[in-house]
């Protein structure tokens, strides 16, 4: 359970840092005032959507940290046989990187008031993401063909589970991006709001790219030393 404990420790440090800035040592029974305009009086200087996405990413992070915790416990058992990583997964990773970069370009274009570039970026990002999902299904089929079935080994099961969870989150992201795209093409949304929405999609995409890179590191065995260290720390 090392991964999730470490993840929560990081979340705890950030939450503690934020709480420390909220005047939790104030004596509210002595503070009578009309607007009480001091730090902690109002909301953070972000839109609610940004804060909402931030918290959602923490929840998604916890979800993947838990699966990785389970992975690291299960991989130490005798029946574990590592899965060969198909080359196609590297190509897929490239697609996801391209998708993320395209959304970042779209966001930058939105900031520079270049709507055509922004549209192109969003379209490219969505296309790369769909290709990534198709590529993931093809990788599954390749593995099945090679005899690496879901139930034949826990390493296989974890790969399919992680890829499916990641794919589902990306699919959800595509739905959101589709809604944003609709607003962009209809053109009846304020520029600042469009910029914010594209920025939120980009942040979500970068986060899912990060998660996928962690999954690849696990599959390649690059994280074995880290997992062993966690194992030693917590057992």
């Amino acid at each position: 359970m090392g991964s999730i404990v470490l993840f929560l420790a990081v979340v705890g440090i950030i939450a503690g840092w934020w709480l420390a800035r909220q005047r939790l040592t104030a004596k509210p029974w002595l503070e009578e005032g009309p607007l009480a305009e001091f730090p902690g009086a109002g909301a953070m200087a972000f839109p609610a959507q940004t804060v909402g996405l931030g918290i959602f990413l923490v929840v998604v992070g916890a979800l993947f940290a838990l699966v990785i915790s389970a992975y690291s416990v299960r991989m130490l058992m005798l029946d574990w046989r590592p899965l060969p990583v198909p080359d196609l997964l590297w190509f897929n990773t490239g697609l996801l990187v391209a998708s993320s970069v395209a959304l970042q370009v779209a966001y930058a274009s939105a900031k520079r008031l270049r709507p055509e570039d922004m549209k192109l970026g969003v379209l490219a990002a969505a296309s790369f993401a769909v290709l990534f999902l198709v590529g993931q299904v093809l990788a599954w089929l390749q593995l099945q063909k090679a005899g690496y079935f879901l139930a034949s080994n826990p390493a296989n099961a974890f790969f399919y589970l992680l890829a499916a969870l990641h794919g589902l989150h990306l699919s959800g992201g595509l739905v959101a991006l589709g809604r944003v795209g609709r607003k962009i093409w209809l053109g009846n949304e304020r520029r600042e709001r469009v910029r914010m929405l594209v920025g939120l999609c980009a942040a979500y995409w970068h986060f899912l790219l990060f998660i996928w890179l962690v999954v690849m590191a696990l599959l390649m065995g690059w994280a074995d030393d880290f997992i062993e260290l966690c194992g030693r720390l917590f057992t």
Partner: protein
Amino acid sequence: MVDISRDAADLVPPAEVPDVELYHAHSWITKYVFCQDAKVIAIQYSVTALAIGFVALVLSWLMRLQLGYPGAFSFIDAEHYYQFITMHGMIMVIYLITAIFLGGFGNYLIPLMLGARDMVFPYVNMLSYWVYLLAVIVLVASYFVPGGPTGAGWTLYPPQVILSGTAGYDWGIILMLVSLILFIIGFTMGGLNYVVTTLQARTRGMTLMRMPLTVWGIFTATVLALLAFPALFVACVMLLFDRLLGTSFFMPALVEMGQHLSYRGGSPILFQHLFWFFGHPEVYIVALPAFGIVSDLISTHARKNIFGYRMMVWAIVAIGALSFIVWAHHMYVSGMHPWFGFFFATSTLIIAIPTAIKVYNWVLTLWKGDIHLTVPMLFALGFIVTFVNGGLTGLFLGNVVVDVPLSDTMFVVAHFHMVMGVAPILVIFGAIYHWYPKITGRMLDDTMGKIHFWVTFIGAYAIYFPMHYLGLMGVPRRYFELGEMAFVPPSAVTLNEFITIAALIVGAAQVLFVYNLIVSLYRGKEAGGNPWHATTLEWQTPETPPGHGNWGKELPVVHRWAYDYSVPGAPRDFVPQNQPTLTPAT
């Protein structure tokens, strides 16, 4: 008094919110069914939770009938008995208590207490309720599939949960897991609303340290739930894979009825870690809102400011943080490294410190207060006593050497029912009696309320206090019938009969409560806007029940904390949070 006037560093909502930003219902369906108003969603959550809670109540009656009079009822066999305990436990913990505290009180109170017009994401909030309802329907559907609901116990431990000797191993467990997954998805939608609304939609002057403790409790519990429910989600998905797709995440190699099963190498202990990584914070997910609400009830009905507000806030946050590093105290008997046991026992006992601070502060708030023994106050007092009782037995069980012999006995059943069953439910009742006048504009009947309290409170003690002694004798939990056990004296059988009768009476008292809820809706005394003379913002709305958008044209402005009761020099014994001076404007 210190008058604070510095430059605003953060954003505060404008006093007037343009009308177009508010959600408006255009038909009866969007006003009362697919509604995005948090108040309506709160009522939908609460009614659904109470309805499914009554199913759990009937299930508890059935299991008590078996324990009190084993063999007397032919329709209760071992399989049914295990289905009763499983569904009772899961419904009470997840679908009733969690749902009503966060979905019910969270939705109703967060926007009103913080001076907001609604939740920040109303559409997602509405979806949250409908996904929750779907989860409840899927759960109930397990009664209508071949084999019935799962009988694996609410902890759903593999491998027995999907072996053919367990009731509902074929369909029931699938529906249970799907229902839990849906619940978690629905909760996440709602939870994001509760947290972001608290962070971003507080009205002008409502600093974090001016928030009522009810909001602090619900806010912190929601944060815990957002971080803990993913563990249950992962456990459910992996168990569903094991059940449906033949993977071996949790299932070890097994021989069943002489046949080797296809599973091999899985770790049931891994499931326990994931389950309790959720399961222990879950205790505080239901306890923290109760702590917050009871603080407000005590302060309001004792006409006294809450003692040690800052400590109360810090304790809520500390309990929330600590709740993530104690999960393995539920697994002492699963076997672990002795240093692990030592660590988890120590962290468990450390939680007693902030919890004890809260109890002392409640008692000190009552000290020399102008205590009004209203029905909400009676329930709040009942909570303190019950929670202390359940908490103290928790100290026993937190120690490895004491837990090992008491594990899987009725002592554990008595402990967790006292601390996370009866105690939070007393708060739920107190809160309903307290806020019903705001929700409906009418008071609940006082006499019926007092009968309800005394029968419930004394009855709950009649049920659970003797159960500790059964546990100390070694009477095991989860047994369909005790049969011939040398260490179980005949008096234990008599005690079980007594407990069953008490349980039937307590259950019947809840029917009176529902009757009161319904009758008072039409015949209850007119409540007025602020019948308890409370300070918090929800009692200061221009309309009762609060209208759409809560506050009329302008949002309230907060000038003080939430606990200005019996302030020297003030003409009344309460000063509302939005009142600029001690003397109310005429």
